[in-house]
């Protein structure tokens, strides 16, 4: 297994390296720069601008800058933001908890409702419930989550005024107020989990129907177990095993969706960091957040694969 882990990491490092190299080349061959004198008419002279570029180290050739950035990266340093002059590492660390709060809650919601809907539509296969859950699953993949967000804000925040329109907590509340945090979390977490619920429910349904056909289920029924026990203890347990890998594959969607969700709800997480970084052409922030999220997803996938082999002894990691 150690060999498996090592090989997976060794495979992804050079590609991540290539991604950073490619981004760097693109960055420096693209028109425009972090400092666009046209944005500050009259405020900044040519000399002053050159001075600023020099201070940021942007007047060096791109390969020197890249080497510098890589050297820092090897020492686990993501550099400093051009705009805020803060270490990117600190900026990510400050925003990571909010993103994790959102994504983990969404994942739990997606699991609970995905499994529930999946099991019910497998049991009541071919009924109206199954039909509705099928339509819901297709719609769940087709609806843009930011649009769903707008609709829910309109209904629950603008019209009914039950929930706040955005943010992670009410402004002015210093103390940690659970109810307040919960109210802020409901809408973003619901939206982010929506597509995943659709995905998981179809998966669980298909897997459960597959498992029910197995011989050991017939054996369990034949020895006179109650149908509920057969389904819950024998069938569902085995049907849920492959969900572990599906979880891993979904991490990428979760982090991607978080960017949009955080934008709609003014959620102070990593997603906002990268969007603002793009607007301000704050390259270290952009590169740092992208790389960090990629590493997070790669590690998540790896953990999911290892967990899969652990819960299902039939699987061997090679």
């Amino acid at each position, binding site marked *: 297994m150690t060999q498996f882990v090592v090989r997976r990491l060794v495979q992804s490092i050079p590609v991540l390296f290539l991604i950073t190299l490619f981004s760097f080349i693109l*960055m420096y061959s693209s028109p425009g720069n972090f400092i666009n004198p046209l944005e500050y008419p009259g405020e900044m002279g040519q000399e002053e601008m050159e001075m600023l570029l020099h201070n940021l180290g942007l007047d060096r050739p791109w390969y020197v800058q890249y080497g510098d950035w890589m050297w820092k990266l090897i020492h686990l340093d993501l550099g400093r933001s051009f705009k805020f002059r803060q270490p990117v590492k600190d900026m990510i660390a400050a925003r990571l908890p909010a993103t994790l709060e959102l994504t983990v809650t969404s994942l739990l919601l997606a699991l609970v409702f995905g499994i529930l809907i999946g099991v019910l539509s497998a049991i009541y296969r071919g009924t109206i419930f199954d039909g509705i859950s099928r339509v819901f699953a297709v719609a769940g993949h*087709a609806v843009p989550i930011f649009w769903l967000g*707008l609709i829910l804000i309109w209904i629950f925040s603008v019209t009914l005024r039950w929930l706040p*329109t955005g943010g992670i907590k009410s402004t002015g509340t210093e103390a940690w107020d659970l109810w307040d945090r919960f109210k802020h979390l409901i809408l973003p977490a619901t939206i982010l989990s929506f597509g995943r619920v659709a995905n998981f429910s179809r998966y669980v349904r298909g897997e459960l129907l597959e498992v029910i056909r197995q011989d050991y289920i017939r054996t369990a029924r034949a020895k006179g177990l109650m149908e509920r026990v057969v389904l819950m203890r024998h069938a569902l347990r085995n049907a849920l095993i492959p969900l572990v890998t599906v979880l891993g594959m979904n991490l*990428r969607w979760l*982090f991607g969706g978080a960017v949009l969700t955080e*934008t709609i709800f003014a959620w102070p997480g990593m997603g906002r960091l990268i969007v603002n970084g793009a607007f301000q052409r704050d390259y270290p922030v*952009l590169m740092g957040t*992208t790389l960090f999220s990629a590493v997070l997803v790669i590690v998540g996938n790896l953990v999911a694969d290892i967990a899969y082999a652990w819960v299902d002894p039939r699987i061997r990691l090679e």
Partner: protein
Amino acid sequence: MEATGQQSSKSTSTIDASMRPTESLVRMTLLRFWRDKAAVVAMVVLIVFALLAATAPWLSENVTHHEPNLLDLSKRFQLPSKVHWLGTDDVGRDVLTRLLYGARISLGIGLLAAMVAISFGGFVGAVSGYFGGFLDDLINAVINTLLSVPTIFMLILLAAFVRPTPAMIAVIIGSIGWMGVARLVRGGVLAVKARDYILAAQVVGADNRRIILQHILPNVSSTIIVVLYIDIAGAILSESSLSFLGLGVQPPDPSWGSMLQNSLSYLFRAPYLIFPPGLAIFFTVLCLYILGDGLRDALDPRLKE
């Protein structure tokens, strides 16, 4: 050589004529597709959308009588009326006209991006599956790693560096959406590669290029056709996400995503603005998925649930 070729083709055609099933393969596929009512409806809806997009300039001149980017501050936030069927936005532009012009950009980007993704992904997948070995391992490593970076992060990263013209956005979306196609085509190539007729072609002395283009690609084309629709749908969603973040289609040009982004700021004042572009995206993507599913079932009935 040519003479024998002709002769053999003639003789097979006479055998075919006597043994041919009552319906041809194409006809059977079309029939299967036709029986799938949901897919047929989806196709009709998409054709209507495409026609509306194609004729947007004519429609805006003769039917809606508005310009997509014409500001009229005296007519801000008007509710739907006889003059403005879907109302006006924050600077008095006609929503319906912008929706029609937005369709040109959103659908155009979707189509172009999917074509970029499919031609590149198809090429990479075919090469990787056909040649195998080290090249295959390398390509797999690249695909696996790219698939672990969230799409939207890569979109943002690339969009931040280039001037976001609609064509450029399509190329960006296509250039990071090829991995799925590559995997599918690779799988298809691996399945076909082991067949006897490929061996036969190799024995006759056909070169690799000819074998891939003439013998392998036609056999994975049904996979590609199905993926095309799913990819257009994905590209339309990507474009709308990027434009919604403000990094895609730039104002004043309308795209469905940028119209939604605009409506976010006026959610309290004009909530009706969120519906036209959102529903347009939703129904387009939904119909593309249904059509893709229907085509897959029609082309390869064995895949049906």
